[in-house]
């Protein structure tokens, strides 16, 4: 797609969408958002990029094979679920760690649940890109 305007726009878009997707992912537990939505938005970003300057560049920009990203994502999500076993809980039992927790403030939460959501994010991102790119290349 040899469009100067789209290209210039796409650059901005990708940055904005990636930041926004991260934002949606991280706040998802407390407000609309989460792994799916984050992943979908990030994917949209790279799709824009692919449309603007071709899948080859988009793949380069992504650096990893989307399929593998998805695979790793599933692995991460699974490990987040299995992690519970270390603490003797059932599969997918959330394990929480609150950094600097005080009685009135929970502090900064780190949790397997978040890891799981990141896994979701990666799978959605990788899978959709793999689909979009391979289809784009087949046409």
């Amino acid at each position, binding site marked *: 797609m040899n469009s100067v305007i*789209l290209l210039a*726009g796409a650059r901005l878009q990708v940055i904005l969408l990636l930041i926004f997707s991260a934002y949606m992912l991280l706040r998802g537990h407390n407000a609309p958002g989460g792994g799916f939505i984050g992943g979908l938005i990030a994917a949209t970003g790279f799709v824009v990029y692919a449309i603007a300057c071709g899948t080859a560049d988009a793949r380069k920009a992504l650096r990893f094979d989307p399929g593998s990203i998805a695979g790793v994502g599933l692995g991460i999500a699974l490990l987040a679920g299995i992690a519970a076993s270390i603490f003797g809980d059932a599969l997918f039992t959330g394990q929480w760690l609150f950094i600097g927790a005080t009685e009135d403030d929970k502090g900064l939460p780190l949790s397997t649940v978040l890891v799981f959501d990141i896994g979701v994010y990666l799978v959605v991102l990788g899978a959709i890109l793999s689909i979009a790119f391979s289809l784009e290349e087949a046409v």
Partner: protein
Amino acid sequence: MLDIVISIFLLLGGFFCVIASIGVLRLPDVLTRMHASTKAGVLGSSLILIGGAIYLQDTEITARVIATILFLMLTAPIGAHMIGRASIKNFKAKIED
């Protein structure tokens, strides 16, 4: 008083949205129709969002509204450009798919 301001924003916004759509419906050809959607459409939505921002009176919301409006102004013309491009490449934009 503030309610009145908000109402004005809303009504103006709504008005421009309708205008944009009527434009898309009534104007003679694709390119002119795009004028309507890109300008009036964006303005209308933006006004309504601003109305919302004023109504909800919340920093976070305000920031989000500003972001939304900026995104809108960034993307709408690009969309228009893509369509325009497609239709001028061969001006026989009448071809049925």
